[in-house]
């Protein structure tokens, strides 16, 4: 499976970047981190859009529609709720 070598390389290196970046997030932000990174995992919306745009018959169209809907809920809801939480984090006021 030589063709998989490059994508797997990308995957492994990105995982290392992920570990490095995430370990620097302080515990106080762990809930927004979870919901925010969850929204990022909604990137599967790209695959969903391509799938829904192809012509693969009626079953394919239904599945494609569901895929886009699910992924969009994940993305839009995830980023919005994270923003709502982070907006509340304030320093001591005078």
């Amino acid at each position: 499976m030589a063709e998989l070598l490059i994508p797997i390389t990308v995957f492994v290196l990105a995982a290392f970047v992920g570990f490095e970046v995430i370990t620097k997030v302080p515990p106080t932000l762990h809930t927004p981190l979870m919901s925010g990174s969850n929204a990022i995992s909604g990137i599967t919306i790209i695959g969903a859009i391509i799938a829904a745009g192809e012509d693969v018959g009626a079953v394919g169209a239904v599945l494609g529609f569901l895929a886009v809907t699910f992924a969009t809920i994940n993305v839009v809801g995830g980023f919005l709720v994270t923003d709502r939480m982070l907006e509340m984090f304030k320093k001591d006021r005078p």
Partner: protein
Amino acid sequence: MNVTAAGYLYLLSAALFIFGLKRLSSPATARRGNQLAAAGMLLAVVVTLTDRQIVGYTTIIAGLVVGSGVGTVLARRVEMTAMPQLVAAFNGFGGGASALVAAVELLRDPASPLRTLVTIALSALIGAITFSGSFVAYGKLQGIVSGRPVTYPGQRFVDLVIAAATLALGGWLAATGSTTALWSLLGISLLLGVVRVLPIGGADMPVVISFLNSLSGVAASMAGFVIDSNALIISGALVGASGLILTNIMVKAMNRSLGNVLFAAFGGEAAEGGVGAEERTARSATPEDVAITLAYARSVIIVPGYGLAVAQAQHVLRELASALEARGVDVKYAIHPVAGRMPGHMNVLLAEADVPYDQLYDLEDINPEFAHTDVALVVGANDVVNPSAREDPSSPIYGMPILDVDQAEHVIVVKRSLSPGFAGIDNPLFYLDKTMMLFADAKKGLADVVSAIAEL
């Protein structure tokens, strides 16, 4: 748009995700970071919409509109206490989408090369498990499904059979590209997600959600292998890593291992109270006693637990803290890593009540301070302040990191009764000479204390 240009733009959106996550390293820059990541996502969506493979836009637009509407309503309406359920639900939708993408790709070309079929099978399997597992977790946290571990004789064996069948169907799909194999694999993976999460107790759900979040990242990466998209592979790997780190933090803070959480059906039976039976008396106090002790202290550390959130008492707690500060008392908050229902949950609840984040301290930072603090005020927390974790090697929570409130000069515990916490373990803290118990609902009890302080 040509493939190369699209590829560079996808790379840019992946870079925006990384910048966004980097800015989450401080509350001051975090909001901007989240917006950057959202901008990266928008860019990726726009680029994808120009993809040449797309022949019709009706389905896509319908899905985008419906999904945005549902997502917006859910995000706006949710109570901050219900955040773990919401994350579980969003996570389930993401996993479901990955599984569906794999299904459509197989329908499009059942004669795909082996490497594509392998990744289709993995994406379908992981996505479907994430979908059903997340919604069972949602049900447990929301109280729709019993929070108790669901167990029955022969469960291990049944689970093993289902897991083996899942792998076999995955292998069949990868080898043949059969659509029958696809539907069966999706069905049995959904079942596997349900039977794997049902036996896990409600209190462990945050670990499950975090772990499933990690899986949904991996599922997105797998979908990226299927459609040859670096953007998906990179973002999925980032999320996979973040989910694993958070999972690890949680199981450590609970003194458990991931295997123990996933397979031990913890929290079902109350542990036999070996020493609990002997006659020990806890000292009950009135709101006036508590008010006097707090008002004449120099320093107070507040330890909020999930009971505070259940009683929706975070706002009245903030009032109490302000009243004390007005009298010159130094007030800090000590936050255990698993206070609330997910890591960092208590910080969000207190932020909602306008508590400034620089008054919140993590376990390692605050523990040395208890020894020279006048009063530790514990509201709705139990296991995370149980000294047995430090002193009693026979205790089930022995070795768990706790907040050392018993080292403060006085301890005040606001709690409804002496009943043990979810781990079913008796707490010797309640019977110390220096401990005062205010038996009350957190909201009512704290409100009484606030008015008593006003009358001093």
